[in-house]
């Protein structure tokens, strides 16, 4: 059987039986001017054919459920199955957003419980769940910062972003109307107070930082940095992409951050779904509460209620309704399952696993972080490979060996970067085998560079022509 068709290449094979039942008389006539003229080209195929089509398609994916996914900065940890089961309960899935509060107390309680959990883990006082992803959270947080300064009649137009930051940081700051100042990392890959002082002035609204940073290095000057910023009247924004390194170890609010977002689809184990849905709740310290988007959940006399901020003060609404509820639900279940010790242990083991891999690779490649890291590390493959072989080739060769590839060419400040984040949910055997495979590929790049350069050959397709795809786009059938 040819399993390489696209949906439109399967011929219509249903009979004349209706697929949508209608038990009232058909009454669908409308004026011609409102009517659709064309028939969409979507075949009418049987459930059987469709099931085969998508089941076969699923087999062309590497996924967490089939292999290790050591993607730096993405925290691809195991997605507990019980959470999926809970999210399917009818009691949650069939609730309409405009039901009265008293008829959705269960869902409100879940949101309230998650707020409590995240507040304890981060130290922040209040959370909004409206942001649907990390970048959406950043945007929300930056709008809060903008509104805060507006309320104080302070004109601050700039946001400082380290050069090691995720691309979403500057993109979000630009969308929120700020100008971006990039601050250079020092030779250890971190922000130095000296470099910061050079760009700091009264125009600066805030600085966005990822701690530990995208190199997997803890920003050891953080206390000094937050003091410098606060003395300047500026705020500190914590990008929670790497929160998996620090649960129960340190709290962003305690070390001087004022606003943060959390990626529930990273640290709190909700599945990534091939690119979402995510959830990027934003937490703030109490002095910023009135700027949060409405509504958020509060508890009054044993009842859960939506609280609406004053319209003039709040930044406004970021998304329709209350947030990506199934994601919120799964994150809440995760926190409940692990409890205080489990959460701390998860972060600690994530750090140990990353350091274990680092210890096995540090003699083979350059690692800007040095001899130890937090939950991930970036390394430069420059000089570690055979002639003409690049990091991209190594990534593709890993696919041939059954692994998803780590993040590559990021952070931008590391040449020929490869960034590994194993997470705490991989076994030692998996880690050992992964390291062995990687070292073998380094060797192979010297002894048999062609094999590495031609990789992948064991995947459903070989290396794809991205240039043609962009020059002459074919975006639909």
């Amino acid at each position, binding site marked *: 059987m040819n399993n390489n068709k696209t*949906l439109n290449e399967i011929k219509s094979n249903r009979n004349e039986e209706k697929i*949508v039942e209608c038990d009232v008389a058909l*009454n669908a006539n409308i004026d011609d001017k*409102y009517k*659709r003229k*064309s028939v*969409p080209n*979507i*075949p009418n*195929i049987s459930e059987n054919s469709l*099931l085969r089509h998508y089941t076969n398609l*699923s087999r062309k*994916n590497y*996924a967490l459920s089939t292999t290790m996914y050591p993607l730096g900065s*993405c925290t691809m940890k*195991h997605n507990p199955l019980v959470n*999926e089961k809970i999210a399917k309960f*009818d009691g*949650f899935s*069939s*609730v309409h*957003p*405009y039901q009265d509060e008293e*008829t959705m107390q269960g869902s409100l309680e879940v949101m309230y419980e998650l707020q409590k959990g995240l507040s304890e*883990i981060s130290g922040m006082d209040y959370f909004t769940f409206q942001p*649907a*992803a*990390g*970048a*959406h959270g950043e945007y929300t947080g930056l709008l809060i910062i903008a509104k805060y300064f507006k309320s104080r009649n302070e004109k601050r137009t700039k946001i400082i972003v380290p050069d090691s930051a995720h*691309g*979403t940081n500057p993109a979000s700051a630009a*969308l929120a*109307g700020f100008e971006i100042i990039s601050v250079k990392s020092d030779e250890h890959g971190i922000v130095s107070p000296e470099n910061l002082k050079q760009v700091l002035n009264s125009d600066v609204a805030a600085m966005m930082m990822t701690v530990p940073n995208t190199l997997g*290095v803890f920003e050891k000057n953080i206390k000094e940095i937050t003091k410098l910023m606060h003395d300047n009247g500026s705020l500190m924004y914590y990008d929670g992409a790497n929160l998996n390194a620090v649960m129960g170890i*340190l709290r962003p609010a305690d070390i001087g951050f004022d606003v943060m977002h959390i990626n529930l689809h990273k640290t709190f184990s909700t*599945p*990534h779904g*091939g*690119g*979402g*849905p995510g959830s990027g709740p934003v937490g703030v310290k109490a002095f910023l509460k009135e700027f949060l988007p409405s509504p958020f959940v509060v508890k009054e006399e044993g009842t859960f209620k939506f609280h609406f901020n004053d319209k003039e003060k709040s930044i406004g*609404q970021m998304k329709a309704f*209350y947030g*990506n*509820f*199934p994601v919120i639900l799964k994150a809440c279940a995760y926190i409940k399952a*692990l*409890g205080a010790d489990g959460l701390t242990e998860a972060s*600690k083991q994530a750090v140990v696993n990353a350091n274990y891999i680092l*210890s096995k690779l540090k003699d083979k490649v350059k690692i800007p972080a040095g001899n130890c890291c937090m939950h991930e590390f970036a390394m430069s493959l420059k000089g570690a490979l055979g002639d003409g072989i690049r990091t991209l080739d190594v990534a593709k060769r890993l696919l041939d060996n059954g692994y*998803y590839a780590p993040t590559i060419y990021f952070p931008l400040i590391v040449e020929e970067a490869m960034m590994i984040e194993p997470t705490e949910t991989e076994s*030692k055997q998996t880690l050992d085998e992964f390291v062995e495979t990687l070292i073998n590929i380094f060797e192979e790049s010297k002894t048999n560079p062609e094999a590495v350069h031609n990789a992948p050959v064991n995947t459903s397709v070989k290396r*794809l022509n991205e240039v*043609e795809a*962009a020059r002459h*786009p*074919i*975006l*639909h059938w």
Partner: protein
Amino acid sequence: MNYIPISSKDKKEMFESIGVKDTEELLSLQIPEVLRAKKLNLPGSMSEQQLLSLFKGYAQKNKSDLVCFRGAGVYDHFVPSIVDEIVGRSEFWTAYTPYQAEASQGTLQAIFEYQSIICQLTGLDCSNASMYDGATAVAEAVILAIRTTRKNKVIVSKALNPEYISVMETYIKNLNTEIIKVDIDDKTGSISKDTLNNIIDENVAAVVIQNPNFFGNIEDMQALSEITKSKKALFISVVNLVSLGLLATPAEYGADIAVGEGQVFGNQMYMGGSTFGFMAVTKALEWKMPGRIVGQTVDKDGKRGFVLTLQSREQHIRREKATSNICTNAALNSFAACVYAAYLGAAGIKELAEANISKARYAFDEIKNIKGFTPLFKDGVFFNEFVFKTDKDIKKINEELLKENILGPLSLSQICSLNGGYDNCLMFSVTEKRTKQEIDKLAEILSRV
């Protein structure tokens, strides 16, 4: 449960390799003691069984599985079994964004098929992989229009979903843009050509019209689009995918951008939180579109394959100059929509639209005959939602309905962002999922309250 598959023996060996005696030593090498947190003040761990019972308890505190006559942006449509089966395959839901194309052909082809279905339904040339929801899709479409036309006024219909208006206002607050809201006609509940003609000028970047609009009425999109084009503004149409089985496509009436909420296709309601936004544009706007896009290409042996493409628009390359900051979107929700549309096929999508309008018309006729209910728009042409004015006690109506496990119509005065003017107005939504028996029951209760 903590899902950590590492024994103490494993740990010991790992510490030896790292060269530390324990985790504390490893952490102390990096984090100054003064920054360390106190022990978390949260309860202890739970077993799977305890967890299930706790969350079953939460679920039971909701009133759920109601016979739903409420819509206003989130709708109770039937979701066929195949959607859960396919979307529930872990090869899809545990995958990451398909950055490594060769190892992600499943997700990539699925997105390509989703984009194709959106293009087929809207008639437009280019769809992205998804936005967060309908509201943010509208906001991003407006930003696209402002940037493309370099003009600074936007006209939106007052019959655009108030949640969308509200999110759009947040999004464009920093762009120095004026938003002008157009009134609807009292009789038809839709925008009249003349009203638009009177307020539009050459400084308008975009006109945003929802069809069917928030109140359920069908707009004369052809006429509104022509007026928009005559002033060189972009026409943004906000559409309901279900209605496209019957109603003219955005391309047919000359829309530049089509956006909307995708929950109606294959996604459950989840308190409004299991959604995605779709966005499709004309060829001319292809490189201006926000979000991820998948394209078809070939591998080095000439075999067909799929990749993320037009990436230089995006934040991971363009940083502050990107078309949007969007990264993670709502891939799995849009995939559910793809499987749903594929299951129905073109024929089923038409049947779906016809069933919606037929049942809504049946319900409308039943309610119209009840004393105390008058249609708010006497000349309105609606799709699957309509508004009645009533002299009865709205609170009582919905209480009585709830006793019979029916989620009654939405009281429009409850939607604060509509800013009043809709007292005593009830908006009913009737999808294909409602049976004749359920509609009759609704009418029966309405007549006796």
